[in-house]
Structures are given as C-alpha cells and as structure tokens.
C-alpha cells in the first residue's frame, strides 16, 4: 500500500519537551505547520531553534530525554504518526517517510559496502525482489551523476563527501517514499558540491513527485531550492509563507534581521547589520511572552506577557504582536 503521489503533512500544536535537571523544557512550543503536497518546504533557524526536533517529529523519532508531549503530525495515507508504535512505526520509516540525516556523510556503516547496506534495508522492509531494488538504486545513483555499480561496491571511505550525501538521498528514496526530510543536506560540503546537491534535490523532487522538507541554518540554501519557507526561533515558527515573498518582503522582525545580517555579493556591503543579542538555548527560552522580545527592535509592552498567536493573512503566517498592529496590507511584489 505504498502511495504513488505526494502526501500532504499537517503538524498541529506540536509540543516537544526535553527532560533536564531543571524540569521538562519545551524545545517546540505548540508548533503548527502544513506542508502542501508536492512542494519543497524549507525550515530555517539557528542552533536551538527546534528545527531538527521538528524534522524528527515527522518520523516520531524524538529521542529520549525528549518526548512529544502534545499535538499531532498527520501524514496523508499514514494518519497521525505520533500515535504509531512498534512495527507499524518501523515500517512507515523508510517506506513512507524518507530521511536524510544531518551529517549523512557519517551515517553510513564503515564495515559494509553501500550495496550490502541497501540489501539490509530491503530485507528489513520485507522486499521480495531484491534485484529490482538494486536496479532502482543504480538508476537513482546514475540520475545523480554517479556510477551506480561502482558506488554500490564501495565502502563509505572510498566516497567523497558529496558522493556520500548522494548515497544518503538514494537510501531515503529507494523504498519509494514520497515524503522526504533532509536535515542540513549540504553542511560541510563546499560551494560547488552544495550547488550540485541542491540541483539534484530539486530535479529528483519533481521527477518522482515528492513532498520535501529541508532543514537548514543557511538562508541561501533555503532560498535556492524551496517553494515555501518557515522561519523558526526559540521553538516556534515565527513566519511562514512562499519563499520569494518571505525573503523579498519579510514581516517578522527576526526574519527581517536575519536577512539583513547576510553579507551579499552585490549592492552596498556595509548595509549588512548584525542582530543584537544571541539566540536562546533550551534553558533560556522565556516561558511566557514572545521568545524573540529580548532582541526585537519592535518590542511593545504586551510582548513581555503574551506569546503571540500565529496569524495568517494572504498566504503568510506571522507570529508577532507588533506586526499584527500594522494594518497596512503588504502587496506581494512580482519576481521573475
């Protein structure tokens, strides 16, 4: 009962807490986010923003001492993955949700060839036709510009960083999952390899009809490849909308600050300005009020006490008290 089309995903009011000596601290505080079928969504955020925790929740794979305390993750054709357990959950991982882990370069078994690991994967998912699986893997690798036969016979140390990353993507797709999560797919790769991987992600996404989620700290990576962009801060999604609009006309003060802080190749380089302060860690996320207020230039009295509710207006969701007050509707600009 493998789906042949891209599923939609709806995360609703998801709270994930981590157990610490100081009690249970929320890494995700009531996050709601929808991934439209067939789109590439990017999640950008700094370390500690909860972006990887959110991505792991899509597999119901938040590790102890963390746990999903509240909320649902509905995946089309699979139901609420938060309620899946044991064998059902194991079967869903890989078959329906493909996951390319952070540092995929280091997540291969150094003692087995890529082909052996692929066969293990096939057996653990009760594939009868293993030769067909190998054939699929070879064609996928060929599609990504690698010599499939050679790569399957290789150990991980015989492959470069960019090649291992492509092997990771192949392993996530070969069981025909139509929802794929990539956690920091290009970290530790250099510019030219990064550009090649991003091109491959985009092409494979379109060819196979996937719903893709990319988690990254690099605004440029998200800008290059995604259709829709969610910005996370302190365990909240503070802004979400079409990528070109979020980048071209950001509304949340954090998104604005983040974009201003990126040095660029054209224009006035001194226009780049740093965001004051530093991002919160698990222990310093404020328990009440807006999580961004300490660094916010638009802070008002209500920010100290009330956590802003995400408000959606013309396809853009923003969680900010000050933005809500500005009643002037922003007309999205047209871009080529």
């Amino acid at each position, binding site marked *: 009962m493998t789906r042949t089309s891209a599923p939609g995903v709806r995360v609703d009011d998801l709270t994930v807490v981590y157990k610490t000596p100081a009690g249970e601290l929320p890494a995700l505080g009531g996050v709601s986010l929808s991934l439209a079928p067939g789109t590439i969504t990017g999640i950008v955020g700094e370390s500690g923003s909860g972006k990887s925790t959110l991505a792991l929740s899509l597999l119901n794979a938040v590790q102890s001492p963390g746990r999903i305390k509240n909320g649902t993750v509905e995946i089309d054709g699979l139901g609420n993955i938060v309620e899946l357990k044991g064998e059902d959950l194991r079967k869903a991982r890989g078959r329906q949700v493909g996951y390319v882990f952070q540092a995929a370069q280091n997540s291969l078994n150094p003692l087995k060839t890529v082909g052996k690991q692929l066969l293990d994967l096939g057996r653990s998912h009760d594939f009868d036709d293993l030769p067909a699986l190998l054939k699929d893997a070879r064609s996928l690798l060929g599609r990504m510009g690698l010599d499939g036969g050679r790569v399957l016979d290789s150990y991980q140390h015989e492959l470069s960083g960019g090649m291992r990353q492509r092997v990771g993507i192949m392993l996530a797709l070969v069981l025909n999952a139509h929802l794929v999560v990539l956690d920091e797919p290009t970290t530790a790769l250099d*510019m030219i390899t990064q*550009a090649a991987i991003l091109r491959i992600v985009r092409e494979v996404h379109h060819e196979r009809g996937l719903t893709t989620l990319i988690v990254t700290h690099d605004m440029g990576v998200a*800008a*290059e490849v995604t259709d829709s962009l969610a910005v996370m801060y302190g365990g909240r999604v503070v802004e979400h909308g079409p990528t070109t609009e979020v980048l071209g006309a950001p509304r949340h003060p954090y998104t604005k600050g983040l974009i201003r802080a990126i*040095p660029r190749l054209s224009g006035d380089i001194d226009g780049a300005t*740093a965001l004051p302060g*530093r991002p919160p*860690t698990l222990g310093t996320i404020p328990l009440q009020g807006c999580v961004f207020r300490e660094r916010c230039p638009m802070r008002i009295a209500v920010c100290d006490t009330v956590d802003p509710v995400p408000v959606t207006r013309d396809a853009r969701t923003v969680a900010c008290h000050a933005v809500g007050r500005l009643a002037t509707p922003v007309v999205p600009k047209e*871009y080529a």
Partner: protein
Amino acid sequence: MITASGITKTYKQRGNMLGARAVPALRGVDFTIPKGGAVTFIGESGCGKTTLGRIVAGLETYDSGDIVIDGTPMSTLKHRHRQPFFRRIQLIHQDPYSALNPTRTIHQTLAAPLALRAKQTGRDSAWMDERARELLALVGIDPGYVLPRYPHQLSGGMRQRVVIARALTVDPEVLVADESVSMIDVSLRLGVLSLLKDLRERLDVSVLFITHDIATARYIGGDGELYVIYRGMVVESGPTESVISGPVHPYTQALLSAIPVLHGVELPGPDRVVPTEALDESHADSGCLFARRCPFVTAECEAAVPALVSDGAQAHACYHPQRRSVIPVEALA
C-alpha cells in the same frame, strides 16, 4: 609586511604495496600581505588554502619558496630565531569549540600568553589582569561575566571572541582567520565579522581571511586583495571587489555561480558557469588543472599549464579569459 614567493608543499601519503603517493597541496604560490591590509584566499575544500594559512602562521613547513617578514627571509633563520617573527602572526581557528581548553577558565586561558608578554615587557600581574579585561572589552564581551567561566558555559559566538582576544594578547600584526565564522550561528556571524573588520581599523592589524564564503570575504576585505586558489595554484587574483564583479577565470566563475541566490531579493547572474564534472584529484593533468571540469576547454588547455598573467589590476591563469556576469544581482535595483 609579509611577502611569500613560490611556496610549494607536498604531502606524502603513507605507501601501500604500490608505493607512496605524493599529494601536492601547494604548487608555487606568491602573495603579499601589506601592513594593515586585508588578503583573502578562497577555494574549494582541499585546494590548499588552509595549508597556506598554517604556513603563514609558522605552524607548517614548506618545501620550497620563501616567506619574507619585514625584509627578513625566514629561510635564512634557524627555527628558534623564526619564532619571534611568527609570533606576530596569530591563527584564529575554524572551530571555537575545540580551540579552547575545556578544563581552563577564560581567565586561565588568557593568563598564560599574557604572563609571557608581561615577562618580555617587564610588567607585573596587575597589568596582566587589566590587560585581560581590556582585551575582552575590545572584542565586545563583558569581562566580569566571561573571566571566571569555562568554555562550555559560553555560546559559539562568545567563544570565538575569546579565541580572538587570546590571539591579541601577544600584540600580533597579522591575524589569520581560517573559516572563522562557519561554525557560528547566522545571526551572530556578522557580529564576529564586524569585530575583525573593526580590529583592522583600530589596531592596524592585517587580516588574512581564508574562506569558501565569498560574501563574507567581501564584508571584511572589500578593499583588499583576493586570491582564488585551485588545487594549490592561484588561478585568479586582484582587488576583491573587481574579481567578484568581473571574474575572468572559469573556475572563479564556477565558484561565484555556486553561491545560492536569495530569490525574492536577488536574481541569478545571466552567465552562471557550472563545472562539467566533480573534483577528482587522481587524474594526472598535463595542462591547465581545471581543464577536465571546464565547460570552455579547448585543445590548447590540455597541452601546458597556463601562467598567471596580469592585465593591469587583475591576474589570471587561463588561455581564454573572458568576463562573465555570474553573481546574483539585486532584484529591486
């Protein structure tokens, strides 16, 4: 002022049955770091830029060529006589998480090099304490908060500032910053970059900036020189702004084309260059090292290595130099 000429370095890989393999990391590199100036090396991983930084900081030997520091060629000196020269050049490591000793407080970390400095200049321990506070304030962190703490109690941005403060304890003339912000959160990155920029202006230190992120190079060393390094050779060099806006070597163009475009803010450059294949160093190259990957390759390129020639401001090593518009342009110009 530091002048390097014809620096080569070859790493020997330990042999197996088939014999040892020599890996050339640098194949004859020339550059100059003027006093108070900024010099940037960019290139892919494995191009030799980190090796070059370590050689400049005196942490790595070189096989041939020479480094001349303020008129003194290092090759004429014995190791221990070189030390005072190389002390003026301090390396800021890539990873602020491993560059600090986790068992020492920041106070202890700064005290060791300051004690050396105090001994050299005949100062007492009161001066050391005062200097530690002064340096931390200079790099923009609160000395009272940081001094008694251990590295794990500080954020990445703060740790990198401590690493910079430690480098400043010996009053260096050159800071070598090797990918110094790549491990730091995006919103804090610009703060560290502007600190380096500020130090250049206030203390008149030169900065040798080693990176694969060309936009940050533009931020720190926009007025300096840029060297594009490919497999141990300089393939293009010139004033940073002019190389970025008008690259003529296809490799520089490929590097600049690979930078993600902020769609919505920028439009992609019209002539983006994509290498025809991935980097594979195992092939023997008779001609231009980039020829195998170059979309504009001709028979001439395979024959002999092109020399670095200057056309006034910019220099390039290519038989078919041509300006191409590859960098993103602002959409709302």
